[in-house]
């Protein structure tokens, strides 16, 4: 299991972290302008409305940019080796930072199709990461 710095959950994102206990990937949506938003917040950055609801998401997207980290960042163990940090453009229309796992880190490049996968955190939570979709693996 990869060593990680545990995320510190904000009040705004509690539904997100709760859903990860069942490995469900959910996104906050503004019901006024029908847009997903990221990161979770209480007001929509597009219309400034506060009608935010959580919806299930397929967790699929495309890598926008990738970097293989050879020096371990905060919370990472050098023994875990190099890892890929990415920005993923989710099909829902938002961009999220993550890792791509399940393939050599140097194989991760912009344009790669990915889908959500889960890595365990403490207290039953899970961290969403991504892996190449089967046709891209």
């Amino acid at each position, binding site marked *: 299991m990869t060593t990680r710095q545990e995320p510190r959950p904000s009040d705004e994102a509690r539904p997100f972290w709760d859903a990860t206990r069942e490995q469900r990937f959910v996104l906050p949506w503004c019901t006024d302008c029908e847009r997903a938003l*990221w990161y979770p917040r209480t007001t929509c950055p597009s219309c400034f409305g506060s009608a935010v609801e959580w919806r299930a998401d397929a967790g699929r997207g495309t890598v926008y940019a990738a970097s293989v980290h050879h020096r371990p960042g905060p*919370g990472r163990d050098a023994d875990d080796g190099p890892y890929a940090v990415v920005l993923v453009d989710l099909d829902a229309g938002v961009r999220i*930072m993550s890792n791509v796992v399940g393939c050599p880190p140097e194989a991760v490049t912009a344009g790669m199709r990915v889908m959500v996968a889960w890595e365990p955190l403490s207290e039953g939570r899970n961290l969403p990461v991504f892996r190449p979709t089967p046709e891209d693996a």
Partner: protein
Amino acid sequence: MIREALDDAGLTLADVDGICCSGIATGIAEYLDLRPTFVEGTFVGGSGFELHVEHAAAAIAAGLCEVVVGVYASTPRLDRRLGTTPASFGPMGPDMAAEWEAPYGAMVPMTSYALAADRHMTQFGTTAEQLAQIAVDTRRWAAMNPRARYQDPITVDDVLASPVVASPLHQLDCCLRTDGAGAYVLTTAERARDLRRPPAYVLGAATASDHWVISQMPDLTVTPGARSGPAAFAHAGITTDDVDVLEAYDSFTITALLHLEDLGFCAKGEGGAFVEDEKLGPGGSLPTNTNGGGLSYTHPGQYGIFLLAEAVRQLRGSAGERQVDGAEIAVAHGCGGVLSATATVVLGTEATL
């Protein structure tokens, strides 16, 4: 540093009625027993000092104050050696990075710049060699700065042979971590004329901001400098052709490359080809980061004040061996956070007024 800056101007603390720093400006005022009428403590990362100059110049023009001192000091290198905790940056607002980036092993700020470099390469075919050329030319300037931490020449091959920290960036694509400090005095043009040393004049300035964490940056290949740069140039009534010396924040080689594009020295996506002919270095057509930059001279965390100091040296003709002949207009372009907020200051000699 405040003492040195005031001595340089021939002023004393009694003349000061405005204070700027990247944090709690009232604390510095208290420490010096000042009673300022202008207090500017905006924190936007390393570009704060250019933003402060913009705001202080506007305040002086509006009659809010007459003599403003701006200051910076940081000792991350010493702190690491002693195991002490560095002074806080001040109130930071919500910490989105702790929740949404740190669990992925993201390094602050390196991960963001590595992702920006990767995206530039993907979108425009920029190469590691082209980025390395920026580090090489900056080191050539540092060789002429006796205070620069690294002065030995390097080659493109040296950069590419240095360890990859976060691809595509190598160790020598990254700025230093040093101790350092700086300060400046800003006052009316009328008063500056009679002071001890020749002043540099603020011809124009502008600020722009568009995100704080990297996932919120709309396009990783376009910084807010694409707005603050042209706005400052328009304010000053200049074009890129008028710029004799460019001091452009180089936290990483990709940072400097993005500035060249966003300030309009070349088209978007052409920065790589633009720097290939060594034009940024000594003797080149666009002398850039003439003190050796954050890459080779110094980088205590927020580098922006050193851009201003070097721009003023060049306009005064006091840059020694690295002096750019006939420098009349210098640009100090700060970039703070993770390509988050830029502030551009156009400075000129008296002849440019």
